[in-house]
């Protein structure tokens, strides 16, 4: 088989090329890109009498942001989502980095056993995670209370999941518990990629273990931390499963655990008191898309800068 040399570059001919690319591009295009585009388009329409939808411009968005019937719930969900994200950034990433640093200590025995164990929660289904923690924290079953009493912190125990003031943070921490493995694993791999010579040179220069971490290892894994942060951002603003599994679609108590994902679900499918509204659902989805896109743009902008500086 001869290769076609064209002005385009060296490649094996358009037929072969299409054969290689088509299946992936088609399925992905039809079931991922097209629906997203349609959803965004959908958000610009309003349902009319008789069924056909009419183009309404930004009316749905205005409704979402201004009409108290929608906006209260929406901004509540948005605010909660930000808290959800903040807890993850404050706890998940530092703990993950710390664990990765611990795993990288030279001469550590049982490293892969630790790594496997620590990554385990990430493998579990959210339903399982949610339910397990519900049981542990349940005031009825008493395991959580018993354990805390054993450590001497018994008086601190409270039904955190059931109270409006603490439910969201508790759920955030449960999510952190589950997903710490990801920053841990990614930073761990990044640390492994640091050449041993650099650590040796730092030791010769006089840096102790902490100095090596602070001046050599941490700066060199920052790109990975950045990647983890944006992945956390995307994941958090897309989250749904845990809240739904533990609190149901209503994300109680009193919507205190409602985040954008659950708000979207309710808007689209409706719940006990209200029927679903596809157009508003699409609107919420579009807003979520824009928020995520904004975050990604900011991330790419910083990455660009860093990559340009390195060149």
């Amino acid at each position: 088989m001869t290769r076609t040399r064209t002005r385009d570059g060296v490649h094996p001919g358009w037929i072969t090329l299409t054969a290689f690319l088509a299946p992936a591009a088609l399925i992905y295009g039809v079931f991922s890109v097209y629906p997203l585009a349609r959803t965004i388009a959908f958000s610009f329409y309003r349902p009319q009498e008789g069924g056909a939808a009419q183009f309404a411009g930004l009316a749905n968005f205005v409704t979402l942001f201004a009409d108290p019937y929608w906006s209260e719930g929406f901004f509540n969900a948005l605010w909660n989502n930000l808290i959800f994200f903040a807890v993850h950034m404050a706890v998940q990433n530092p703990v993950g980095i710390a664990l990765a640093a611990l795993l990288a200590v030279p001469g550590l025995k049982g490293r892969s056993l630790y790594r496997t164990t620590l990554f385990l929660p990430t493998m579990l289904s959210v339903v399982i995670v949610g339910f397990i923690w519900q049981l542990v924290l349940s005031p009825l079953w008493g395991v959580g209370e018993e354990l805390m009493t054993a450590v001497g912190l018994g008086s601190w125990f409270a039904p955190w999941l059931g109270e409006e003031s603490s439910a969201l943070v508790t759920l955030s921490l449960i999510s952190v518990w589950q997903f710490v493995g990801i920053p841990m694993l990614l930073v761990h791999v990044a640390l492994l990629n640091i050449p041993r010579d650099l650590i040796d040179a730092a030791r010769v220069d006089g840096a102790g273990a902490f100095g090596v971490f602070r001046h050599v290892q941490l700066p060199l894994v920052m790109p990975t931390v950045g990647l983890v942060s944006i992945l956390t951002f995307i994941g958090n603003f897309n989250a749904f499963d845990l809240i739904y599994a533990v609190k149901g679609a209503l994300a109680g108590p009193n919507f205190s655990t409602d985040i954008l994902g659950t708000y979207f679900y309710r808007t689209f499918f409706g719940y006990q008191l209200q029927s679903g509204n596809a157009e508003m659902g699409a609107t919420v989805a579009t807003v979520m898309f824009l928020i995520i896109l904004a975050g990604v743009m900011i991330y790419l902008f910083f990455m660009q800068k860093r990559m340009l500086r390195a060149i």
Partner: protein
Amino acid sequence: MADVDIKGLAKRFGETAALEDVSLSVADGEFCVLVGPSGCGKTTLLRIIAGLETETEGSLSIGGADAQALAPARRGIAMVFQSYALYPHMTAYRNMSFGLKFQKVSRPDIDERVRSVAEMLGISDLLHRKPAELSGGQRQRVAIGRAIVRNPKVFLFDEPLSNLDAALRATTRLEIARLHKALGATMIYVTHDQAEAMTLADKMVVMKDGRIEQIGTPLEVYRKPANLFVAGFLGHPKINIVTGAIAAEYGAASIGLRPEHLTLSPSGKGYAARVVHVEPLGSEAHVHLRSDALGPLILRAPSDFSVSGDGDLHVTFERTRVLLFDENGNAIN
């Protein structure tokens, strides 16, 4: 500056020994080269001196003080790594000043030291750049600068030239020799390249399989190798080893003939040999011969050498230049 004294050093991993029974003294200001094939333990020895690895047994003192319990930073050493090990996220300046911060040197002093060393090495206008923005040779100089700035008692070099191309290697070799003269520092240098070892060393330590084969000045070791391995390791082209009847004539199991000590005689004097291959190098020619009496030989001939007739020649050598080795491969005096 200081001397380094090593006695009975060994490094073992279970059954295998990376180093065994290594004893060595490096005088203050001496340039000592550890040379040998890969896996001979030279880098391990260097790293033990640096404190990056611990010995299984033996003693080590630097500047008269026992160094074994000290961390690398406290031993008064500085190391230039094969890969340079420059911190990629720091500028050349910061790379060089990094270690001084831990020594609690004041900021103005740090600045002065870094700049004067940079001046000495000709990298003053590169200080603000990061390693990725520097060429291989420039990076190497920053790595050397980082070591000098520390004012160490002993400099340790781990094959610093092996990542450079041949031309750069030759010029940098000169610069290192010049540096040694300028600083008068004790330097311990690891390489697998025997030409580097020969040209740089005051004292050469030939190693093989974790043991020291011979210590001496380059010329000593070249002219009087302690055994077959050392004889064969130094010198290019490789020394000719002859066994059998001819060796027995000298009372040895094998004899060594350096290619430069073989001569071609036009008339019938000497041993018959026929040319197998000629490698013209421009400045000279390396002639590969086969002799019934002596076996395969390599000989250094003038550059205008050419094969005449059917390639039959005669080879002679001076008896006084012959190196003698017993059945264990050790030199006979």
